[in-house]
């Protein structure tokens, strides 16, 4: 044991941030040289567009919102060692539920907002629960199931947006905009109050995981299902429940995207947050307390590299940095495994 587990975790997260920035720097260097740009200026602009300017910070926090909500959802499933790769699809169901509620229900605005949240939770939970049920009933591996569920959910969402829910105005490939009373208010443009939804969820998820009986059973199931079963925990039920709760929370990210960012439905509204959130969840080491910070960091890389395209850096560089994020996360886990297995021999 090199350090206490917690200190080690925070240290590893710092190493991850360093690796990511270093990787991005290394890739930027030749691009800057070939385009005669100053690397210092580019780096300053990266910071300006993400943290150092108020509008940049607001932009980053806006992007943090769906990442944060999704990460919190993933924490729950991952803690039970159920690898929910289906957050993207669950977000899509959140989008469907929110759009359906806010566009078509003739109700006052605040009730529509509340109903959108409730319906998103339920739809996402049901969609996630499918994979959980298959896993616990017939031991169907959840990774391929949740992964494939994404495509089904996204296809359904795209169909609704481009089909029955398509705007009546010609020339638009999206739905009608939401009525003004069903939109969440801005805190500071472009930061929406949906950010607060994410922040409120942090202590709730923390409480579920650290204090509730369900959280304890979740932990025990994840660490050692055999012993948990002997200890009188219904492991099968816990696996279904973990996907149920996880799917529900992930779907709220869809609600926040519709009610707090886009205000209408369009293809690609889910924005791959379901996949980026895997990185922020793993780097937070499934600790809900840390997810705001890791989500913020992932959002920072996304916003920053996007902004660099305005300075002449080619567009695909965004994808490159996402790749660096993922590689960094994998490296960290290799490093951790090496530290953990240090000195022990497998016989």
């Amino acid at each position, binding site marked *: 044991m090199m350090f206490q587990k917690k200190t080690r975790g925070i240290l590893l997260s710092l190493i991850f941030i360093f690796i990511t920035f270093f990787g991005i720097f290394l890739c930027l260097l030749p691009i800057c040289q070939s385009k005669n740009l100053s690397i210092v200026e580019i780096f300053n602009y990266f910071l300006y567009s993400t943290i150092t300017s108020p509008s940049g910070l607001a932009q980053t926090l806006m992007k943090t919102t769906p990442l944060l909500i999704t990460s919190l959802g993933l924490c729950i499933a991952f803690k039970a060692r159920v690898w929910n790769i289906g957050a993207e699809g669950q977000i899509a169901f959140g989008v469907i539920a929110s759009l359906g509620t806010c566009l078509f229900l003739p109700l006052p605005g605040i009730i529509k907002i509340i109903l959108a949240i409730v319906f998103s939770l339920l739809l996402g939970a049901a969609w996630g629960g499918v994979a959980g049920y298959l896993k616990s009933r017939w031991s169907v591996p959840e990774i391929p199931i949740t992964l494939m569920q994404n495509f089904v959910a996204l296809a359904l969402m795209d169909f609704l947006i481009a089909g029955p829910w398509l705007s009546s105005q010609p020339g638009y490939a999206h739905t009608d905009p939401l009525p003004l009373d069903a939109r969440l208010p801005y805190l500071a443009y472009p930061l929406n109050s949906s950010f607060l939804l994410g922040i409120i969820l942090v202590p709730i998820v923390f*409480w579920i995981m650290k*204090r*509730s*009986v*369900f959280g*304890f*059973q979740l*932990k*025990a199931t994840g*660490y*050692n299902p*055999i*012993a*948990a*079963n*002997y*200890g*009188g*925990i*219904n492991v099968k039920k816990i696996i279904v429940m973990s996907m149920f709760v996880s799917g529900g929370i992930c779907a709220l990210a869809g609600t926040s995207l519709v009610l707090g960012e886009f205000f209408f439905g369009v293809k690609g509204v889910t924005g791959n947050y379901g996949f980026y959130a895997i990185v922020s969840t793993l780097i937070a080491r499934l600790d809900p307390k840390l997810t705001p910070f890791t989500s913020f960091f992932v959002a920072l890389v996304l916003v920053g590299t996007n902004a660099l395209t305005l300075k002449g850096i080619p567009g695909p560089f965004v994808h490159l940095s996402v790749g660096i994020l993922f590689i960094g996360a994998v490296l960290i886990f290799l490093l951790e495994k090496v530290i953990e297995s240090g000195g*022990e*021999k497998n*016989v």
Partner: protein
Amino acid sequence: MFLNRERYISRKKEKRMMSSKNAEKILVIKGITKRFPGVIANDNINLEFRAGEVHAILGENGAGKTTLMNILYGLIQPDEGEIYFKGKKVVLKSPQDAIKLGIGMVHQHFMLVPTLEVWENVVLGLKTKTFLDKEKIRKKILEISNEYNLKIDPDAKIWQLSTGEKQRVEIIKMLYRGARVLILDEPTSMLTPQEVKELFVIVKRMAKRGLAVIPFITHKLEEVIQISDVVTVLRKGKVIGTVRTKDTNKGELAEMMVGRKVLFKVPRYRSKKGRIVLEVKNVSALSDKGIQILKNVSFSLRAGEILGIAGVAGNGQRELSEVITGLRKPTAGKVIILGEDVTGRDPKEIIEMGVGFIPEDRKKTGLVLDLSVAENLVLRNHFQYPFTKKPKFGFGKVLDYGEIIKFAEKLISDFQIITPNSTVPVGYLSGGNLQRVILARELSFNPKVLIACNPTAGLDVGATEFIRRKIMEQKRKGTGILLVSEDLNEVLSLSDRIAIIFEGKIMGTVSPKTKIEKIGQMMAGVELSRVE
């Protein structure tokens, strides 16, 4: 009849001098020692393997067989000691080195590619030219197959073959590479009785042709007697003795395997025997491999009584405890706990009836290593009062960590668990303390029935004694205890009655005062009625 190591060795020397056939010592190991953190897996092992001999290595799980086998095959390197092959000192750094010399090994689980044909599997991994000369390979395979009576179709696909045939392919693979020493890891464990017979013919043929065959066998004494010329028994990493097979018998081998040194005595308590708390009626069950491992097992256990199940490891003890705790479904028979038929119920339901369980594998089944000591201590009743409370707001149940830690600290002092505090992950504790945590948890709710499987396996003397004392105290409190143990000494010193199990059958139930020779005979498969 006290058997000790020296006597076996002297007897062996005597035999060797008398033996006119002075076969070549093909493989000699001297002073092999291998340590792993906390255990000596092999302790100064000296052995000689002769060409033309079948030399079986017999020992229970944890006796050091696997380590020795891996050393001979170059998978691990010994800390001390030397290996001589045909009189020359060799260093085996990898299985490639071993194969090059002519030491081959057939694993218990076959290493074959199911979609390829037999001949392709045989040459797989050999250095060849760009193209394989199929005809030449086939001819050589057929030659080997004729010479050793290894019937096989070289063009069949592996997935089409039976287990016995797959094993033959593995043997051919080794002979094709020119093996002169052949290590067989549990060669009969996956085979049907008919296939076992065929294998024995092949093994004898190989020995006749001058190979040294070394089967490693855990507990099948009958097979050892049938197949081998020489037997070496290992226990706790040491060679207990090497004997000529024709000079020994099953009872003697069983005694050598389990040992009989009495370390210390636990004070016995007399207690009033109460009603029957556990009844097993005509239970039969299959092993993981689908072989019938329990055959019509019946016994009953009363409150305030310890019933020991003795036997050489692997005779169905594990499966029996699994059937009782609901992990394994019996194919026939009934399990009745506290008057209720619990056959086929979930482990969770059975445990909730007040059955305590000390599993064989404390790390895998008994504890959640990443959870804290306190959390593990309440694992069984974390969802009950007083460990849960209503939250101040919201709904559901929350854990009351204050109560949990109070409870844990009491158990930690009662059971003398050595831990920095109650909130460290239980995985940081040593083996003896892990077992104390399990025992504390299982006894904390005063179970009506306690099933203990090898409760002191791998523990030091202090922890062993403590745990045996606690089990004895629990008996006085009126718990019916089923003690399933491979340690005969433990069963003898704790039990009120002893049931001896052999190949899944109960050979008889005797009192612990019965002569050890009798119990030894029963452990080797002689029924009580026929014991002299």
